[in-house]
């Protein structure tokens, strides 16, 4: 505490949700914490820990009709009880005294209004500025948050900006009225690693400049080390640990905090198995597993040999014109049996296009892809059908990539029937059940629908679906990026086990360099459709040759500087 009266004081906050089936769910089980003025507090926890509920409760944005805040709860902002405030004074408070930015800037901005309009709206609402003055102020704000060409971008629509720029606009909107408290709910989760770092730096800089307090919400403890003053760790609606940054990082008291600190893959260590939450919640102390060495060996059997792969997209321009966009330019690599090739790069680098082209979901413009010696890009659709099941893909969004109207059984059995795997339905069902158990889900999951599972479980189902076809190559396209750090560790361990057991080869596409380092033998760095660097993982990370690789590496959150190894 740096001041006697805190800016915000949350006391014994209990929030219950009424579920559709009439049951109650305790989202927050009596949490208390303070935020001092001009201080950054990080609220860390997994999905379902109640961290976002806390933020929404402070803003009083929880939907009234199925939320109950228990009597005895208090949220005091500068001494005023927000839970007792009427709608009018709450509206005057929101956006002016307390502002908020969200995880997904694209959907958080209204798509049909210009970004300028949306900032001007806030200014006119709270400061009584006239439109013209508000516009000037909006341009100045966009300048302040580092948006290039603010005078022009003020009239742009959200979809015309990149993800990082959209988040800058959200920040400009939030700081427009100089709020005393800024709540940032996972503001960088949807962004690339370099953009993430820029946004974090921007927030830290604005916090100092404007003397705001910041409540920074994230699932990734590794992010907050560089700028938070205090850390609150939450789980299942309770606060597990609360203390100054240094203390939480160097002497974590709670087993759960220790687990969160350890489950993130690191650049300086590659354990054979990543730590997961359960390792720490058991009675016996956590044993660090032995290190794993990785890298291609000279005698490795090459499964997939890609030579000079190109993919360009054409779009129409004007009456007769055509615009050609080269998404992938002359990409060559070799994937060894039982090994992993990591592909890293930012959005738009062409890494996903490489994966989709190899699946023949895009038609390659040029190049060869030799799979066990045969060029799969030159095959007729009929010939390719036999190879299809050998190369499988797991997508990023486990919520969107499973058919919501299919049960897990249907999801797993459909590809088997299509490729003639298993003799009859009974045998296929047997296989499916065995695979589900292999990926760590119970047999009874077969009868359920995707929405009944969490993100990590859905990704397991997606993995099981690929495994039904006994593939040789698995393309993991940002497969763990949408997951919490703790769940990510479990899925990475599963992928590792499967590789060791079945000799699978992975093409591991990700923007997260720590994850790629952990799982890859060879790493390929892509920028604007081209490969800028390719080497054994350890070599590349220890001695990056290309400036772009160095830039990516420097953007990785360093955690707490004095964190023990």
């Amino acid at each position, binding site marked *: 505490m740096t001041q006697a009266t805190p800016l915000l004081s949350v006391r014994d906050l209990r929030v219950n949700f009424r579920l559709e089936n009439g049951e109650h769910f305790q989202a927050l089980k009596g949490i208390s914490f303070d935020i001092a003025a001009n201080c950054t507090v990080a609220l860390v926890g997994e999905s379902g820990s109640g961290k976002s509920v806390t933020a929404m409760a402070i803003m009083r944005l929880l939907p009234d009709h199925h939320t109950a805040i228990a009597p005895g709860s208090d949220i005091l902002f500068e001494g005023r009880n927000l839970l007792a405030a009427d709608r009018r004074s709450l509206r005057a408070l*929101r956006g002016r005294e307390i502002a908020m930015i*969200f995880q997904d800037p694209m959907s958080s*901005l209204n798509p049909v209004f210009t970004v300028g309009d949306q900032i001007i709206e806030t200014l006119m609402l709270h400061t009584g500025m006239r439109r013209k003055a508000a516009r000037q102020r909006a341009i100045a704000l966009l300048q302040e948050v580092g948006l290039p060409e603010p005078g022009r971008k003020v009239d742009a629509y959200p979809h015309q900006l990149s993800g990082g720029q959209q988040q800058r606009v959200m920040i400009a909107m939030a700081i427009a009225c100089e709020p005393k408290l800024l709540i940032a709910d996972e503001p960088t989760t949807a962004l690339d690693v370099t953009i993430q770092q820029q946004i974090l730096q921007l927030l830290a800089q604005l916090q100092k400049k404007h003397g705001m307090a910041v409540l920074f919400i994230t699932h990734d403890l590794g992010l907050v080390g560089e700028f938070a003053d205090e850390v609150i760790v939450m789980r299942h609606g309770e606060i597990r640990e609360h203390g100054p940054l240094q203390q939480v990082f160097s002497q974590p008291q709670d087993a759960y905090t220790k687990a969160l600190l350890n489950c993130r893959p690191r650049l300086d260590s590659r354990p054979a198995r990543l730590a997961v939450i359960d390792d720490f919640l058991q009675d016996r102390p956590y044993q660090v597993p032995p290190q794993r060495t990785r890298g291609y060996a000279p005698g490795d059997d090459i499964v997939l040999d890609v030579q000079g792969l190109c993919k360009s997209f054409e779009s129409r321009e004007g009456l007769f014109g055509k615009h050609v966009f080269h998404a992938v330019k002359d990409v060559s690599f070799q994937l060894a049996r039982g090994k992993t090739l990591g592909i890293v790069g930012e959005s738009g680098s062409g890494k996903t296009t490489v994966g989709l082209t190899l699946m023949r979901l895009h038609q390659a413009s040029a190049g060869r892809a030799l799979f066990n010696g045969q060029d799969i890009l030159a095959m007729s659709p009929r010939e390719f059908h036999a190879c299809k099941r050998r190369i499988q893909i797991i997508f990023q969004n486990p919520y969107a990539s499973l058919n919501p109207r299919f049960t897990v059984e249907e999801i797993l059995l459909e590809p088997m029937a299509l490729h003639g795997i298993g003799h009859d339905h009974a045998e296929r069902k047997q296989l499916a059940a065995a695979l589900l158990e292999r990926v760590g889900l119970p047999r009874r999951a077969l009868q359920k629908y995707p929405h009944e599972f969490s993100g990590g479980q859905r990704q397991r189902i997606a993995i099981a679906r690929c495994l039904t076809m006994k593939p040789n190559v698995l393309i993991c396209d940002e497969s763990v990026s949408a997951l919490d750090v703790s769940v990510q560790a479990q899925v990475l361990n599963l992928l590792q086990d499967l590789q060791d057991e079945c000799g699978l080869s992975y093409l591991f596409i990700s923007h997260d360099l720590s994850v790629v380092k952990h799982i890859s033998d060879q790493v390929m760095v892509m920028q604007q459709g081209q490969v800028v660097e390719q080497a054994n993982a350890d070599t590349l990370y220890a001695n990056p040759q290309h400036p772009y690789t160095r830039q990516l590496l420097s953007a990785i959150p360093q955690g707490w500087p004095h964190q023990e190894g």
Partner: protein
Amino acid sequence: MFAYILRRLWQMVPTLFGVMLLLFILFHWVGGDPSYILAGKSFSAETLANIRHQLGLDQSLPAQFLIFARQVLTLDFGISWSTQQPVAEILASRIGPSLTLALPMLLVSLLLSVIIAAIVAYVRGSLTDRIVTLICTLAMSVSALVYIIAGQYWLAHKLGWFPILGWSDSLATNLWRYIPLPLLLGLVVSLAPDIRFYRSCFIEEMGHDYVRTARAKGLSERAIMLKHVMRNALIPVVTSLMMSLPYLFLGALLLERFFGIPGMGNEVLNAVDRSDFPVIKAITIYVALATMLFNLLADIVYKLIDPRVQLK
């Protein structure tokens, strides 16, 4: 934009050709020999041959198609077989009464359904919402014919609030006297499905993240609904509206028939009754053209309300 419109117009040529071909083939094979219809009861081989020659039916099929193509290109479909008036003249005189009914109906229905839908979406889950949903479902389950007959019987015949049917030459008299009852009945039929559809458009938009952002800014629920949600929800509304515009020209078949409104709908039914091929052909081509043009217009309007749309 200009290049886009030009390209779209150019694409209409093959579409129109397809419609013409289909229409031609249908009339040739299914329509029977029109000379029998034209000759009436007292025909001789000579009159039939004469009529065939006049219509060009004695020429080869491609030549006949060329005649039809010329009619479409000049928009001159000759004279009606039943009334001997030029087709263009007939259609020109029918379009007015149709629009007199259809335009007010479209505007009132749009306005009412959007407002009611926005209100029930705002109070979704409440008693008002449930009652409106119930009424809509009930209203949709009853045939339009029932409304028309019941309306004419109770409101016009028993209560005498409206004339049962009729039409005059004065626009004011029509709007004041003859339009209100068919308009009212037409609204009863069209409002229910529209309210339900628009309500779901609004509710879907209200669940989006940008609404949460707007709340976090401190905007009132009213401002959020009227500014942020409305414009986004209007995108599907406008789409469905533009799709329905070509039907304006076809008129409301049932309403025009029952209320004796001499509009396009009535004309279509008459033409079919009398096998008046030139009129049917002309109307089919006009509706095809109107559909294509309004589809283009829909895409352009779409671009105006939704900046994300790219016209390619």
